[in-house]
């Protein structure tokens, strides 16, 4: 029997969180090896484990995968969360990329210089309510189905619901005018594997606080 996938990252959300969500939603148990010191990261680099000297890295099926998207797509394929054909995949990819674009803005917010932060937050909120949430609400409205693509749960739904939780953390009122998205969020959150992941004690990571930010900066040698 194959071992569990092993995730290499620091003990925080960062670029690994979407992978944790996807594995959890697929009902897949996984192990985590946390990078706690810059030396831990150096060791991974030096023993050739990180193709482009970067994490996330996930050991799965005998390969050391890097590049967040490559990892997500492999996991989605393996656990049937990638649609039934190429055209469904294209839609799932398109929606996932949109989620990733907004997610990236939110991810990088802690690194924003303090004097630019308010402007950045305003920009994110604007993009959320004017560009991204309307697009997804429209998709759900267009077919009236429970999930974004092919009337079946896919990675696109999981990534989007993860994003909706992030948006809610930023400002709950942002979701106010998107009833179908609220419905999707509730529906996906009630799936047994996701429900479990959302409970305290799971491998889901909390929002970044000052302490975790300092730790990440130290490990990744960011000034």
């Amino acid at each position: 029997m194959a071992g569990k996938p092993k995730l290499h990252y620091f003990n925080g959300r960062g670029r690994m969180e979407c992978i944790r969500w996807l594995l959890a939603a697929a009902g897949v148990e996984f192990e985590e090896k946390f990078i706690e010191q810059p030396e831990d990261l150096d060791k991974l680099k030096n023993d050739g484990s990180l193709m482009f000297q970067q994490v996330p890295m996930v050991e799965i099926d005998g390969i050391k995968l890097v590049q967040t998207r490559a990892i997500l797509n492999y996991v989605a394929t393996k656990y049937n969360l990638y649609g039934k054909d190429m055209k469904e995949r294209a839609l799932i990819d398109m929606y996932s990329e949109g989620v990733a674009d907004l997610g990236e803005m939110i991810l990088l917010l802690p690194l924003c210089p303090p004097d630019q932060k308010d402007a950045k937050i305003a920009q994110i909120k604007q993009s959320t309510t004017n560009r991204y949430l309307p697009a997804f609400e429209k998709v759900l409205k267009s077919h009236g189905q429970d999930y974004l693509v092919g009337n079946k749960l896919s990675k696109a739904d999981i990534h989007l619901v993860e994003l909706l939780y992030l948006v809610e953390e930023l400002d709950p009122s942002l979701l106010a005018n998107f009833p179908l998205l609220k419905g999707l969020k509730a529906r996906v959150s009630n799936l047994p594997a996701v429900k479990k992941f959302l409970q305290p004690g799971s491998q889901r990571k909390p929002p970044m606080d000052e302490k975790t930010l300092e730790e990440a900066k130290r490990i990744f040698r960011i000034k």
Partner: protein
Amino acid sequence: MAAKPKLWYFHGRGRMESIRWLLAAAGVEFEEEFLETREQYEKLQKDGRLLFGQVPLVEIDGMELTQTRAILSYLAAKYNLHGKDPKETVRIDMYADGTLDLMLMVALAAFKPPEEKEESLALVVKKAKTRYFPVFEKILKDHGEDFLVGNKFSWADIQLLEAILMVEELDGSVLCDFPLLKEFKTRISNIPTIKKFLQPGSQRKPPPDSHYVEAVRNVLQL
């Protein structure tokens, strides 16, 4: 008979160039509509053709696809350039994502003020020489095959060639420590469809200049 794919973008490389490369390498004829005015862009948005209000947009097989990577993955699968099984596909994705990251840095540098632009481009060359090219040189060395994955031409090979040529435009000596990449460059450039694309008069676009940057700023009102 299916219509040709139609590409909507500015008249330059940007985020569409990798898509042009992939189509050309696959021997697929495509049409292009160039965004030159704000009005054209606003019309695309108003007509609901841009899911997130952004280009690239590719009309293909009855779909209006946006998001560069979604388009590239679809095309790679459609034209059998995405590996024969999930393990090959993930390798192709890892390699392609790495090279795409590098090329997007070049695309974005064009929009920075002169000093920052110089810095960004120098960083691209450094990353190519220290992070990316050594990896691909080793991959080719380890298996001794002509192509990066599965002894068969794939999307990963097309992206790597595109990246090599792009970085060479910034620093002509960049391949001097990578003999296998030099051979790779020659070999892939000689594939008939790619050879054709590399000739003057093809749909390949030139590096971004101030003209291009101004045109984009104008259309997107940046």
